[in-house]
């Protein structure tokens, strides 16, 4: 009897300790990054770091503007490609596809989601980069090695597809049949029902999916690093090489690990990355939770 109680209490305490530790992990990471960034912030104002485009660590210059511009270009471009393709695919799967197709597509999407970033990068390097160099860039009259913002954005959009598609499928499925019937019985076509009722009803979930997709794209390190070209300079076009905040960390870490102020600069980059991704995920999950509550009433 006593041992039961003892075992019970012990087990409970252990689980509680674990839970507390893991919950605090988030704050631990944040605090550590903040702490290590302080060094570079002592001698460089945050404005200078964010808005100067000169990155010359040897001369003590840590301007991130070029990197930030590249990050915005890569992420924005990737989402511009990914959002319509994902939305249209999701609608097709839920509303138009024959049942057999619907059942076999879901596993495909899951597998897409599980492919590691390095493999995406490898395939992009072998397939996409030469394509950009020999076909796409020349078509625009631009010379490019293929290692550029465009390639990074393209492979990134493929990586974002599964996130948006599966969230959209979930939310389209949750829309009650009777709502669609209400629209159809007034004589609307299926597409009009989709346009005017389904999209509107699922709008919060779609927004959440986009936010989560943004978060993923913003933080993707490896695949981007492998095809973006690693140049820290304001880009001339999307076919110029560049560097995103995430890929910068991977690129420069080896070089800069030894010198404290360089390392601190990179920690600052990591901190910015952490904060931005966190905000995207926070917003995305909040919107998603509100949307889910609506459909459970």
């Amino acid at each position, binding site marked *: 009897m006593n041992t039961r109680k003892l075992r019970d209490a012990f087990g409970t305490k252990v689980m509680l300790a674990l839970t507390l530790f893991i919950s605090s992990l988030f704050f631990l990471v944040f605090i550590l990054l903040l702490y290590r960034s302080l060094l570079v912030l002592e001698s460089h104002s945050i404005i200078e770091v964010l808005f100067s485009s000169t990155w010359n660590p040897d001369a003590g210059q840590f301007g991130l503007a070029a990197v930030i511009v590249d990050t915005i270009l890569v992420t924005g471009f990737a989402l511009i490609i990914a959002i319509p393709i994902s939305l249209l695919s999701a609608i097709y799967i839920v509303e138009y596809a024959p049942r057999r197709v619907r059942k076999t597509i879901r596993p495909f999407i899951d597998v897409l989601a599980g492919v590691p970033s390095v493999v995406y990068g490898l395939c992009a390097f072998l397939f996409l980069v030469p394509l950009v160099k020999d076909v796409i860039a020349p078509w625009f009259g631009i010379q490019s090695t293929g290692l550029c913002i465009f390639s990074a954005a393209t492979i990134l959009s493929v990586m974002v597809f599964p996130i948006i598609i599966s969230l959209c499928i979930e939310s389209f499925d949750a829309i009650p049949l009777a709502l669609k*019937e209400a629209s159809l019985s*007034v*004589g609307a076509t299926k597409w009009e029902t989709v346009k005017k009722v389904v999209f509107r*009803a699922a709008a919060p979930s779609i927004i959440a999916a986009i936010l989560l997709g943004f978060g993923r794209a913003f933080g993707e390190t490896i695949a981007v690093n492998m095809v973006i070209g690693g140049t820290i300079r304001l880009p001339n076009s999307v076919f110029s090489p560049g560097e995103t905040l995430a890929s910068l960390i991977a690129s420069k870490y080896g070089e800069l690990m030894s010198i404290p102020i360089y390392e601190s600069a990179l920690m600052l980059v990591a901190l910015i990355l952490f904060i931005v991704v966190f905000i995207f995920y926070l917003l995305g999950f909040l919107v998603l939770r509100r949307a889910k509550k609506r459909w459970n009433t």
Partner: protein
Amino acid sequence: MVSNQIITKNLNVGFHNHHVLKDINIKIPAKQLTAIIGPSGCGKTTLLKSFNRLLEIQDDVKIGGEIIVDDVNIMEPGLNVPDIRKKMGLISQKPYPLPMSIFENVAYGLRIHHDKNSKELAETVQHCLEEVGLWKEVKDRLHDPASRLSVGQQQRLCLARAIAVQPDVILCDEPTSALDPIAAQQIEKLLLKLKKDFTVVLVTHTLRQAKRVADYVIFLYFGMVIEQGPAAEVFNNPKSPEMKAYLAGEIS
């Protein structure tokens, strides 16, 4: 001489290999209120939804036979289904206002089908809301989301939405089962008023409601039509044992 709005000939409906409706041959008289009654699960809603071909949007549905609306077999292949549906309005058990404002709900069908200018649109919307007795209650908040209305008001809104496109028939699937008694009574009164201009088909599982409002009755039992006829006849002189049992409350 009462003309028949809807006639079915040997209508059979199967759902996932269940034979839900078996050889249905019925007539629905025009500009009257027809009640489809019977125990739960016997196919009443299925029959209702076959009239506007709404069954087909689900998977695994097989429909055989003819449904003749105004002398046209709507089951003929190649017909434009949205146009067929436009002729029939549908309101469901639980009111489902579209995720838009009150005004837009009623205007929904109008915007799709007609190129009316905004003045005509507003007039039609007002007219429909007046017909269902909602106008006074909502005229100051037309652009509020429809979800803010009470359940009873929402159901009347759904009715307004349905009649806005001037259908010939209004199909009602147990429209009062989610409402409180007062709201239910309002809907019943409305249907009685509307039957002057539209053919109303009402699925109900309350015998008392059918007795209150029906002109014509169809009794459905396990997917088969056991009796049909004018209400007075069916209720006062039931011919089949099942109908008698149902009237006596033995089966429900």
